């Protein structure tokens, strides 16, 4: 797989496009990842085998994280964010399995059963702060457990270090708190204790799986500040997983937008927020409350993330995409470079694929939204219909959830 990592260029895509649907279905669009990165995920595919079907929860995800930087992984619920995090830590249990791809930590492939060798180098902070703490042991006991494994500390030495760690994560009166049970701490304090537990492993990479989702906004801001501070002090790399675009904008250097198990757009956070290339990214940004004028209804993305049960043969976002055209249902888009040379931005959308004649200019109105007012989920969902003569024919072929969109289009 990795040998194809570099050949996702335009020429290759043209060939694939000509070859037709069958080839696109199997073709993987591994994107360019930096071989020197701290963590390098290449074409990761994690499949869950249920009695009825295979669920491709993570379907060809590639990204990298460099030392000391914060990389975001953003997407809706069910898009495969958490499974990606669990895959990185080797926590995927039966009936799930990592079927393909590689996860390189400092150049070593963890999927070759190397997790145990790097335990503690990668630590995770889960969403539910109470859930990560075992209620029958004191906070200190659980931090000492990690200290003992990774730093070989025992007894009073470990206790002192645990108190230090709790102080580092901003828990007041740490000397007393260290002997308290999780239920005696508030949600914010629990999450701080969990972060202290992760830091006890002395990690180089901290995977934060929605660390602030269960917390209220003020505590959320405090935790984000804390993570930023820790990153500066300890040169931590952070993989930040969330569904909250606002948090991504605040906290990350680079971002990967994930949809239905695939990365659909990646790039530096600032650039991506300024000019989203993928309609899904655009839609996510539109649904941030602050970005819409106060008197307008907040746009939403209708429908829900499909559960991928097989290899992709089309654009998985097409049924919900206001900018979809007929090719979207027959071609699986590959990552295309966006913007200037070397800007390190790519998007997997046919709008940016030169083999298809539709361009972003046709569908975007130059602002955040789409060409038609109302945009996402609005009644006049006819965005991007101009210049697509074959659109109505294609509508007949599109399955299921696509129909509502087509109906909307006909009415307008």
């Amino acid at each position, binding site marked *: 797989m990795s040998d194809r990592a570099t050949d996702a260029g335009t020429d290759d895509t043209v060939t694939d496009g000509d070859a037709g649907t069958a080839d696109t279905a199997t073709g993987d669009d591994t994107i360019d990842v930096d071989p020197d990165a701290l963590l390098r995920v290449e074409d990761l595919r994690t499949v869950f085998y249920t009695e009825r079907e295979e669920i491709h929860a993570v379907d060809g995800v590639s990204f990298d994280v460099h030392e000391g930087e914060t990389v975001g992984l953003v997407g809706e619920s069910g898009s495969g964010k958490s499974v990606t995090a*669990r895959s990185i*830590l080797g*926590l995927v*249990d*039966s*009936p799930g399995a990592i079927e393909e791809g590689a996860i390189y930590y400092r150049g070593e492939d963890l999927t070759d059963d190397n997790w*145990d060798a790097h*335990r*503690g180098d*990668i*630590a*995770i902070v*889960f969403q*539910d702060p*109470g*859930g*990560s*703490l*075992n*209620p*029958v*042991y004191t906070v200190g006991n*659980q931090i000492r*457990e*990690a200290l003992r*494994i*990774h730093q070989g500390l025992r007894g009073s030495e470990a206790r002192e270090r645990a108190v230090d760690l709790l102080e580092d994560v901003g828990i*007041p*009166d740490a000397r*007393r708190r260290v*002997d*308290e*049970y*999780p*239920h*005696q*701490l*508030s949600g*914010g*304090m629990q999450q701080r204790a*969990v972060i202290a*537990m*992760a830091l*006890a*492993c002395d990690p180089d990479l901290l995977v934060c799986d929605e660390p602030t989702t269960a917390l209220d906004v003020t505590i959320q801001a405090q935790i984000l500040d804390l993570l930023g501070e820790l990153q500066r002090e300890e040169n931590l790399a952070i993989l930040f997983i969330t569904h909250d675009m606002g948090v991504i904008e605040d906290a990350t250097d680079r971002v990967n937008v994930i949809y239905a198990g695939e990365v659909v757009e990646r790039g530096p956070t600032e650039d991506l927020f300024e000019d989203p290339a993928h309609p899904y990214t655009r839609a996510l940004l539109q649904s941030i409350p602050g970005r819409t004028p106060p008197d307008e209804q907040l746009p939403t993305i209708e429908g829900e993330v499909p559960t991928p049960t097989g290899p992709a043969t089309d654009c998985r976002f097409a049924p919900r995409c206001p900018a979809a055209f007929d090719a979207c249902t027959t071609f699986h888009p590959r990552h295309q470079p966006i913007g200037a040379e070397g800007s390190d931005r790519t998007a997997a959308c046919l709008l940016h694929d030169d083999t298809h004649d539709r361009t972003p200019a046709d569908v975007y109105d130059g602002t955040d939204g789409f060409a038609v007012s109302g945009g996402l989920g609005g009644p006049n969902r006819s965005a991007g219909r101009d210049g697509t003569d074959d659109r109505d024919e294609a509508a007949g072929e599109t399955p299921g959830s696509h129909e509502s969109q087509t109906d909307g289009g006909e009415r307008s």
Partner: protein
Amino acid sequence: MAGTAEDGTAGDTAGETAVETSGPADPRSGSAGSAADARRSTVLPTSSPLLVWIGIGVTLFLLEAGAFFDFVVGLLADAAIAAPAPGPAVVATVKSAVTDALESIEGAAESVPTLLSRETIPNGGYWTGQGWEKTFLGLSPHLSWGIRVALVYAYAFAWAGWAVLGYRLYRREIRTVAWSPRDDMIDRFRTHSWGKFGLLVVFMFVVMAVFAPALGPTTVEQNMRNSYSYEMQYYDTQTDEVRTTLIGEANLDSQSIGSNSRVMPFTYDNYGRYHPFGTLPNGRDLFTFIAAGSRISLIIGVLSVGLSAFVAATLALTAAYYKGKVDLGSVLLSDAIMAMPQLLLLIMLSTVLADTWIGGIYSGAFILALIFAGTGWTYMWRALRGPALQVSERQWVDAARSFGQKPRTVMRKHMLPYVTGYLLIYGSMRLGGAIIAIAGLSFLGLGVAPPTPEWGRAINLGQDYVTTGSWHISLIPGILITLVVTGFNALGDGIRDAIDPKSDTESAAAGRGGGA
């Protein structure tokens, strides 16, 4: 406020109400703390309750220190004798030296006075025509025996009270945490009458087993095993004089075999011996038989349930941790064992293994425990599998795995505490089942070899006389077995309701879905 901590709405509420900035000066601040303060007045009126508590414990221990040392030394001596010594002569010499040393210590231990021995409060005296000789303070044997039994139980309850006191002391004075989830479990159990009834029955049964040698009016050795090696004195009413005879001879005259010749409960036989539960058809004392039998039932029960619990918990946790093929394998294995007809398997194994060396250990009790454990763990495993799978999905298990904790430690530290409650429930219920099964095998003439007393054998011995005047022989052990098994089940019920936070709400019935 106090209600929140007490009524068992449990960890969730307490977690939310805990305030980040709760005062550092008083560790017991908060809702649960005030509840504890309110009841602190009941604690010992002294400045150092811990010392008083330890003092009580030491005093209680000293009362029976002799019996305790006697037991420990006896156990060591038995182990030293039983241990094989195939090695060179040096080993044999060392071994014999050790055995000798232990024997001398045993003699010393026996000389330590104990409060509750039959030497201190004897009841095996005889009537001289004017008064009782060799009984406690010259009282009649049944009074002497009654005093000893009452003292034994009072002593046992004193220990129980001491333990309760210790727990309260710990909860209010020693630990820094004002509330823990266990408190709610204990409080729920304290309001569970059925469970408390079970606990009382089980406690009295265990006391009977532990103090079996002191409780019986006579001993197994004198009355049953070697009754022709011991003499006794009795008052011959025809000649008005004290005579001496062998206990075995006396037993022949005290048989309960029908309506004409019988010694009923709470009566004396012709030799001035008191029989609280009457005698067996062979003239032996039924109460002594039952007290000794309770010990062997309890030992087999605890050993077999302990082993099954160990196997079941290990397998359930391993399967829940690794899932997939390991889980499937354990399901297949236990289903295969469960598919075999249990009783037939028991009968076959106990017959086949009866003559092997392992079948001889402790009159065959050890092999019985092994057989029960080997066939019985599947039921416990089945009850544990669900909870184990559930806890394996908890995030703290993943958290521990993510920072590289060893699988064995994750299972022991982060998963086992969540299945121990189920282990207690099903262990308690299986213990009752084991006692019934042992009695059933003895009833069929299998299992524990005679003359070692076993409740089921008493029922078997008495079954010919159920319709006659000697109905007590089968009835008393039968009632006791029913009572003890009910007690274990009630205790299991109580524990289950106690560990289930939903049980004291209106949906109590729904909370009982544990499958038991």
